[in-house]
């Protein structure tokens, strides 16, 4: 893959704690093309937020990128100095966080928080920055933007604050917007508003989006590609249709089986299939496949050796569908799973 907008290669991010090294992100790689929306899905602690923070250069002590490269338009972000990184952050990559209640500074007005990045990165004068800021608030759908611009975060509701966060992240027209659980703290009707907004921004401005979430429903409406992460590793990746209709990894089956579906007619008859146990301790990860202790299909090799990525050659899609699971080895027994449905359904 050449000329990808973002190219993450063999990223390893570790936290060096007193107890030892916690490999939060272990050999993760993916590409993002411009105008594309990529979802990173997984449970808490699987390393999805740490991946985002590594890209943003926002890792805090004792976290460190131990190995790997992050190329943004061919430039390796891991080699930039702190000062050079400042010019990238907020300018070329914008980020919105999960909790709109705490990620705005409560003692500064929206105006003060918004013009900061515009004056810093875009070298706008204060007047220009103010008018651009108001324009941005209008763009994200805040009514009476001219007055609201001078208010403080506590005067905004949760959904409005998330809109402000998006406006701030979009201020310098970044090429990539990283959204870390942008709707988790919001009510469903407000979540629908924010998702519509992100979709329209992607379409009108061509911004690439990395959506980090645990909600497979949110992903279905917005993204084209999905990475499923488990315990610091990517276990399955592919186009959204491949992932939802032909999932191959038992963990993906588990994620899809654990959520109730509103549209299902036999909703009440279908028992949810939980994933038993809990994610492994990353201080001492299992030697083989990290999902093996919770996987009901685990074989002996799963406990001994980490599985490589197997390519699934089934559909005529251009997007690669890869899954890291020994079940896909030709020597493995065939396992049929009800989660694999045909796309025509």
């Amino acid at each position: 893959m050449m000329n990808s907008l973002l190219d993450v290669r063999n990223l390893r991010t570790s936290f060096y704690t007193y107890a030892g090294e916690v490999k939060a992100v272990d050999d993760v790689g993916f590409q993002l093309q411009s105008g594309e929306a990529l979802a990173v899905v997984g449970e808490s602690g699987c390393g999805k937020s740490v991946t985002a923070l590594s890209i943003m250069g926002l890792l805090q002590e004792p976290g460190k990128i131990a190995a790997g490269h992050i190329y943004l338009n061919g430039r390796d972000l891991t080699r930039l100095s702190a000062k050079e990184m400042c010019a990238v952050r907020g300018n070329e990559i914008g980020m919105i966080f999960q909790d709109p209640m705490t990620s705005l500074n409560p003692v500064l007005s929206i105006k003060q928080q918004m013009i900061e990045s515009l004056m810093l990165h875009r070298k706008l004068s204060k007047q220009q920055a103010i008018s651009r800021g108001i324009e941005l608030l209008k763009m994200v759908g805040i009514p009476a933007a001219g007055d609201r611009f001078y208010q403080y975060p506590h005067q905004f509701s949760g959904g409005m604050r998330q809109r402000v966060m998006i406006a701030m992240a979009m201020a310098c027209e970044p090429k990539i917007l990283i959204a870390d659980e942008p709707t988790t703290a919001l009510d469903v009707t407000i979540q629908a508003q924010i998702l519509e907004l992100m979709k329209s921004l992607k379409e009108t401005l061509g911004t690439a989006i990395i959506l980090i979430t645990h909600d497979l429903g949110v992903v279905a409406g917005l993204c084209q590609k999905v990475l499923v992460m488990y315990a610091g590793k990517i276990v399955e990746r592919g186009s959204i249709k491949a992932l939802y209709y032909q999932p191959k990894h038992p963990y993906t089956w588990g994620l899809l089986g654990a959520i109730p579906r509103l549209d299902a007619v036999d909703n009440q008859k279908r028992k949810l299939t939980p994933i038993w146990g809990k994610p492994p301790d990353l201080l001492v990860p299992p030697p083989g496949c990290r999902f093996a202790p919770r996987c009901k299909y685990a074989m002996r090799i799963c406990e001994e050796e980490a599985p490589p990525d197997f390519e699934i050659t089934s559909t005529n899609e251009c997007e690669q569908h890869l899954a890291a699971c020994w079940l896909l080895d030709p020597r493995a027994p065939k396992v049929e799973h009800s989660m694999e449905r045909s796309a025509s359904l």
Partner: protein
Amino acid sequence: MNDYGKDFQPLIEVKHLQKSFTIAKRAFAGAKSCLKAVDDVSFAIYQGETLGLVGESGCGKTTIGRTLIRLYEANGGEVIFRGQNILGLSEQKMLPYRRRMQMIFQDPYSSLNPRMTVAEILKEPLAIHGIASGKAALNRVHELLQLVGLSKEQASRFPHEFSGGQRQRIGIARALAGEPEFIICDEPISALDVSIQAQIINLLEKLQEEMNLTYLFIAHDISMVRHTSKRIAVMYLGKLVELADSGELAASPLHPYTKALLSAIPVADPILEASRHRIVLEGDVPSPVDPPPGCRFKTRCRIAKPCCAETEPEPREIAPGHTVACFAV
């Protein structure tokens, strides 16, 4: 099937329940205003069923749960448990009812005392209700732990040694200690990871079958409520807007708010999701301190008529077991 009145006894009947909170308009100033968290809500819960209660944050669903077991004192209305209005009872007379009505809380991290071991946590209700003491109490603790899928060796541990899902199991064991008939599940899974959520839901379903429990299942996730509940009540700003059989509510919602709520839920199916027509509600929920006169949903409603601003729609039974509070239906 909808004819509950003939086949089933209502276990709990809630009639015109009201709960308001007085809040200071300005700090240190005399002026007080009234926040009507629950305003004239009536419904019944039948023996052995699960009634789902959904709505967005701040709509009063938790307040209903807490008022039902008198963690909050109601301002008006009746809560009739097996023929007895429990709202007027003295603390002493209330005690046996508390044993029969229990609650599971949202946050498994803050609802367990960090300084007590699991055994101590579970023995407390046993002692309060005089169920068991000494060796018998310990045996009961072990029994409870096994019931919720934990081992008896874990009884001497403290809450911090458990994961979120395990803590929620302890919370469930505590609720079961007094062998209740009715359990209020107040967002029991929203603080948990997806794979753990399903474990807890399956556990609750298993316990319901085994012990013939009745649940009031409070949640904001309508797809999960649809999965667990026989009937669903939808709340908006302190009012019950729709109550129906869960299948009927999901298939043919009548109230415009229920329609919007259902369409706002993302479905984990890309093709279906692309073809869905989504009703995106404008704006936010208005403040419950001074709710708009007339129908409370009219500020965000697409089909609001002039009459919606004047009088408040009363809940009407449209079909057997399907009540809606809307003029346009």
